[in-house]
């Protein structure tokens, strides 16, 4: 898969929109492959030594190519590389590749909407989901989660914070929040309705979109007052529009970010968890977090989040 992707982009450079390219696209499409991207090069990070033992323990995974479903609209975690859009880049991508390197499998990527991440996994159209998804007990009904990061949310608002929003609290009463379908923030904001009523204010309104870009646009165009999401995503948006956006505050949520794997495939889950543990032990995860400007204290020791 990696090789296909590279060849495509090379032939493209040689003769733009050449028929050879189109033919190879069609051929590849018919072979049933997802012709997209592969990943950023991983060569700079060494594989932890203990991984050899894990490969011996889980020989079935070795040499396989697995599909990682991502919602590539979160720069810093997963997004296409603006320099080479055939590649996905970000912390989640690097972490997934590191787990793959440790266990000896390759990854290809399938881009879906946020709400479709777990359904894609359930339908067997993907093998694993590493896409900045918060591990909640509700979501654990659809997949088993292995956590790897703590959750810090940022509150994105228009420059100057005209509505004075300062967290997921009554400051949101009467405000319009843009969120993605399926985000954990949605029920938290919805739950404010009762509190707002108590103090005689209108409930917050939620606009649902299906990717970060649309949520950020909603604030830029004045349709929404705030977008509450992962703090690093919010920082990225402020960096892109320093004159128009700002981060009002950061809040902690009682969740962790997790890797989703199919339910009832305990062996695969154990293998991923063991690899993640080794990657953390060897310091590789911290290294990757530094590379993508994530604060170190966000790291979380792997634990399972399963359905009750």
């Amino acid at each position, binding site marked *: 898969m990696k090789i296909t992707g590279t060849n495509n982009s090379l032939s493209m450079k040689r003769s733009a929109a050449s028929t050879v390219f189109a033919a190879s696209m069609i051929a590849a*499409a018919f072979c049933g492959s997802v012709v997209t991207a592969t990943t950023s090069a991983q060569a700079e990070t060494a594989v932890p030594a203990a991984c050899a033992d894990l490969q011996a323990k889980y020989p079935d995974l070795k040499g396989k190519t697995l599909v990682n479903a991502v919602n590539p609209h979160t720069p810093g975690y997963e997004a296409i590389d603006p320099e080479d859009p055939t590649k996905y880049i970000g912390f989640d991508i690097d972490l997934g590749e590191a787990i793959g390197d440790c266990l000896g499998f390759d990854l290809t990527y399938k881009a879906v909407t946020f709400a479709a991440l777990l359904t894609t996994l359930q339908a067997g159209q993907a093998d694993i989901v590493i896409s900045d998804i918060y591990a909640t007990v509700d979501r654990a009904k659809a997949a088993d989660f292995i956590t790897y990061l703590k959750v810090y949310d940022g509150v994105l608002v228009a420059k100057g914070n005209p509505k004075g929003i300062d967290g997921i609290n009554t400051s949101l009463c009467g405000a319009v929040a843009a969120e993605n379908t399926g985000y954990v923030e949605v029920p938290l904001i919805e739950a404010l309705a009762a509190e707002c009523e108590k103090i005689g204010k209108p409930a917050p309104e939620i606009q649902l979109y299906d990717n970060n870009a649309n949520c950020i646009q909603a604030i830029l165009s004045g349709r929404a007052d705030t977008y509450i999401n992962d703090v690093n995503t919010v920082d990225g948006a402020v960096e892109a529009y320093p004159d128009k956006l700002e981060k009002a505050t950061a809040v902690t949520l009682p969740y962790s970010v997790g890797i989703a794997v199919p339910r009832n495939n305990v062996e695969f889950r154990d293998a991923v968890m063991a690899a993640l543990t080794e990657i953390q032990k060897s310091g590789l995860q911290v290294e990757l977090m530094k590379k993508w400007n994530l604060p170190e204290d966000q790291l979380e020791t792997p634990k399972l989040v399963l359905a009750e």
Partner: protein
Amino acid sequence: MDLFFHYLSQPYLVTGIVYTVLITFFGLLGGGILGIVLAGMQLSRFRALSVFARIYAVIFRGTPLILQMIFCYNALPMIGIKLTALEAASLALALNEAPFIAEIIRANIIAVDRGQVSAGQALGMTPTVTMIRIVVPQAFRTMVPALGNEAVSALKNSSLASVVSVQELTLRSTQLASATFDFFSIFFASGLMYLVLAGSIAIIQIVVEIMLDLDHPDPKARFARLLPWYRTPLPVEAEAAEEEDATATPLPPASRKAIAPLDRRKRAQAIAASRPAVEIENLTKSYDGRKVLDGLDLTVRLGEVVALLGPSGSGKSTLLRCINRLESWESGTIRTLGRQLGVDENGLKLTPAAIANARAAVRVGMVFQNFNLFGHLSARENIAGPLRWVQNASQKEADRRADELLERVGLTHRADALPRHMSGGQQQRVAIARALAPNPAVLLLDEPTSALDPELVNEVLEVIRRLAVEDGLTMLISTHQISFAKDVADRAIFLADGSIVEQGPADKMLSEPSNPRTRQFLQIMKEDAELV
């Protein structure tokens, strides 16, 4: 602006087009094939098939494409069918397009003049041949604009494949926008790409329309028509035809036999001695409980010319259509040259195709009130085509026969004209030539001059008169032309309320009718003629 051009030429977006085009192509291809099947089922005479097709249309037209995409992608794996994203999206688009395309096909097939289908049937074409040779070529021409619309709509709908992770243009645009925050340049660039794709479909549509345009045989005009400001000129030929008809095209000089006055006694003797051509016994037929034919008995002998007279609704047309089995009836039998059309030797009902073959074998020709020429075929091809398709004549043979018959009806110079460029009189003469082409034993003429302008009536009547006199052809003519009937027919029959009121030698009966109803009818016809 720089960014706009950067994204416009970016290979990542450009290759997204490949997926967009692939999904659109497979969606339309699959939808087209499935649409043909569904349209066929809806038009089928088997009720179960049409009910099934309707249920399919209700389901797939009534649910959003986005759900169908998700279903094909995420639900089919549960029953063991795991399609790739591209396959699932193409399948969903095909399933969704099929009922829309089916309706376009069905509407345009229904819109093809029913009279032409009757004419095809009367010439002995099987339903399949009629469909392929007559209906489809005309329906396809009219369905091109609607299909073009559908193709553009499918192109835009392909963007929904982004929900099932197909890397098509829309998905790539949104991903790129997420990574770069350059929303507007990216969406303007991909919008322009969609416009170019939709524009290409429009160009294909225009080219197809021009290639199928029968009014533009001139190759220069074909290209000129591509220009948006080009307007189709009024067909010059049609005007020419109008002018020409004011003076009426002359028939070839009549033979001596045709000029000589009829020797009625001699004809009557010959007819009495010949064998029956059409035998009708106790024929009964009703429409919605109203009897149109009520126990009718009639025998027509070979060589006899019978004029059917009677007020509208008296059953004249129905009787003629029954003889050719274009209509079915409740009880009674019709034998043509000793053979029953529509049932086999054991009296079992035949399929439409078998009836068509029997019609061709018995050789009953029919001429319709509204000519019913095949609108997409030239005069020559209207005659030669059926000879090739039904009688299996060679191209050369069929063309020779067509030219010979066109000469006989005085229309050699109009051989290459389309029906719509000919006058009514010319069209009816071509229709008569077409009916004569397979050498029919019996010719049925259903009010052949009723749809004609008065000044064109005579040229057609003259052609029919010569057939009676020169060829000794057996003919049943329903007509309101009393003097023509008196002049040409051997026997006149007055029909009212589905049964024969009076019949007798034409000259005698039409001059001195004995039945009061006949008398009254003839009186009215006479007064009308005087008014004109």
